[in-house]
């Protein structure tokens, strides 16, 4: 596997830090150009209507502006941080106008972050990630995506694909193992889930 290091993640780190330090609107505009197309893809995959997707992306980016001071490149990659922000905005926007009392702040209180400084995670560049996820067999990647985008439980996925529950669990376990093995060949990746207890 040949790897071409993606600069995107580092570029975004830098832009977010500039926003945090000097409220740099130019950095914000650059970040918008870089991040919006994938954030929009996430919104659509999660079931956002095509017209609402950009509203969610905009909300997400404005939250980035407000929370930029909380970003710590020593504890998370910018992509992971952006992911948690758009996930939370998706939850909260989906609940707007409804009698729904639980918000993302309840689920992820902004407590003192006790994340360990994890330099390893930063070694995983965008193109490697892409290679890893797409090297999974379709049938495995499909299940991972169903959990993340559609919120399906294992038994719901089993019903949908008309497969036994055990097959779903073992495919997911294989997917995690494969991601882990492939990543270890290149960098010592996340110690993600060698023994899954699904």
């Amino acid at each position, binding site marked *: 596997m040949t790897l071409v290091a993606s600069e995107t993640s580092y570029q975004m780190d830098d832009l977010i830090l500039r926003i945090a330090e000097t409220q740099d609107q130019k950095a914000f505009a650059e970040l918008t150009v870089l991040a919006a197309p994938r954030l929009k893809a996430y919104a659509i995959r999660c079931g956002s209507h095509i017209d609402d997707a950009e509203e969610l992306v905009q909300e997400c980016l404005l939250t980035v502006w407000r929370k930029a001071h909380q970003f710590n490149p020593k504890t998370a990659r910018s992509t992971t941080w952006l992911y948690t922000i758009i*996930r939370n905005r998706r939850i909260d926007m989906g609940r707007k106008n409804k009698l729904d*009392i639980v918000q993302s702040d309840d689920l*992820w209180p902004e407590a003192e972050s006790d994340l360990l400084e994890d330099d390893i995670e930063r070694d995983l560049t965008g193109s490697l990630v892409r290679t890893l996820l797409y090297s999974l067999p379709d049938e495995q990647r499909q299940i*991972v995506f169903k959990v993340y985008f559609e919120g399906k439980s294992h038994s719901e996925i089993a019903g949908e694909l008309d497969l036994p529950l055990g097959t779903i669990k073992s495919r997911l376990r294989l997917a995690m193992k494969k991601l882990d093995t492939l990543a270890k060949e290149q960098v010592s990746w996340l110690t993600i889930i060698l023994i899954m207890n699904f």
Partner: protein
Amino acid sequence: MAHYHPNHELLMQFAAGQLGNALGIMVACHLESCAECRQTSNQFEHLGGDILESLDEVDISPDFISQTMAKLTEVALADSMSKLTETSTDSSKDTLKINSEFPKPLQRFLPASLDQLSWYGVSKNIKQFDLSFSDKKYTAKFYKIKAGKELPQHTHRGQEFTLVVDGAFSDEGGSYHKGDFILADTSIKHQPKAHADCDCICFAVTNAPLQFTGFWGKMLNPFMR
């Protein structure tokens, strides 16, 4: 430290932001006290980041950037205005929460202390308190089992998730303490007993009512719906 944990299916769904309200809050409560699961959940968030990065880009509308920049100008202005006025409001909010005995994710939905919960009786030894999380699929309750007393033997028509909030209880499967997260389903028939030293308080989330199996339990069924 907790000895019983949510499984990876739940932690992945949690990190994906795809759990319903009641279960989401419960997993969040467990994570607050369990560094191990917090770590796993962080890894699933990293996977979320990976997935985000792996998506094919979707074209954005031509005026998206200018609209977003216009919005930013509004937001930046509003923020600088509110910074001038906000001084006392924030600190009062913080002190209110410090005194609570509950895990942080639950605090907003409960009074500050266990004594202030308006328990209602199921029996002399078992009290309950309903939590409303506007969750379509699951119901959430607090149960209080008196020290040394046991629940009638029961099984579950669906799934039941339990988080020990205070005290401890035991059943045939083990002994559970504060912070432990337990999953029971239709295959489990058990008779939880609170440890003798103090009342046991559990946060329980179910998608179907308990089903009591013993004689006394059968008598209780109509009241437990």
